[in-house]
């Protein structure tokens, strides 16, 4: 008889809740039991793996641009017989390109070429999500 009364009581509590209240209660209970992450806790900026992947890219981006710059300069020099003018010029341009690549990779700009877009905050955000 008592068990029956309890059931009735529980039923009454459930009925008195609106669906919104119920879903909020379930959410709270899930967080309390550790089934869901705490929404108030600060979220990690990005998964650790993505951060490692970003870091691993930096070095090769710089070296690759340097090599391309140097090689292009060397090839132009051999062709135009101006050694070592273009090799020196394009080596430094490669240096700049390398840093540009790193900067874009780290800010989530990727190769979205265009300085004008750097100011576009929404663009930066979607870029970061891709990482």
């Amino acid at each position, binding site marked *: 008889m008592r068990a029956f009364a309890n059931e009735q009581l529980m039923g009454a509590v459930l009925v008195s809740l609106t669906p919104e209240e119920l879903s909020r209660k379930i959410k709270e209970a899930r967080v309390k039991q550790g089934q869901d992450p705490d929404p108030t806790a600060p979220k990690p900026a990005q998964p650790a793996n993505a951060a490692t992947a970003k870091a691993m890219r930096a070095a090769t981006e710089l070296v690759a641009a340097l090599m391309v710059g140097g090689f292009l300069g060397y090839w132009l020099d051999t062709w135009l017989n101006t050694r070592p003018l273009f090799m020196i010029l*394009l080596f430094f*341009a490669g240096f700049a390109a390398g840093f540009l690549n790193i900067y874009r990779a780290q800010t989530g700009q990727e190769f979205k070429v265009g300085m004008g877009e750097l100011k576009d905050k929404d663009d930066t955000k979607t870029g970061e999500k891709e990482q």
Partner: protein
Amino acid sequence: MAHSPLEQFVIKPIIPLHVAGYDISFTQSAAWMLVAVVVATALMTLTMRSRALVPGRWQNLSEMLYEFIGGMVNDTLHEEGKKYFPLVFSLFMIVLMGNLLGMLPYSFTYTSHIIVTGALALLVFALSTIVGFARHGLHFFSLFLPKGLPVLMMPLIVVIEVISYLSRPLSLSVRLFANMTAGHTMLKVFAGFSVGLIAAGTATGFLSVIPVIVNIALIGLELMIAFIQAYVFAILTCIYLKDAIELH
């Protein structure tokens, strides 16, 4: 030379084959590529055979791989991405299999050869350039010309942007190749320390345990790098294609 840490990278022909002066032998590198294709195909087809609504362990594995790349392609390329999903997934699997199968003892890591990674990177580079020109025609060149650029800065920035663009295939291939080669060489070097310590006498023989412990940790690191490098290769493929398709 037999015990050099670099000896593991030597290409050995299994079936020697010479046609019109070209050496097209079937090498152990090619053999492991074949193994990778077979393993990847088997993994994706056999595990999905039951088509269970509630997936088992194996089905879960292939669904995770599929959704990982599917999500990545969808996030970067959106609706357009569906066309490129097979390419990105195949590239991801061939790189991942190359890296992971290379971790097996006595196996060969074909991703440790720049000719292999270079060919894959050039495929991505050529495809993204072709897609860019096919969709935008000569307007694709505006990729090198940032919006709102002062005329005075143009020659400098265009040169830098062109170098930046041309460095894509190089950085894509060198990154994968260098990581794989360095990791495998490091494992061999530490294993070599153990052998050297045992050879030096019984007293130092006990110390040979230390490089083994280091190697265990390194193998864990290498497994992580194997996955991350495949991930980086796939996401960069997506990003390069995105540039070619969207071209602001």
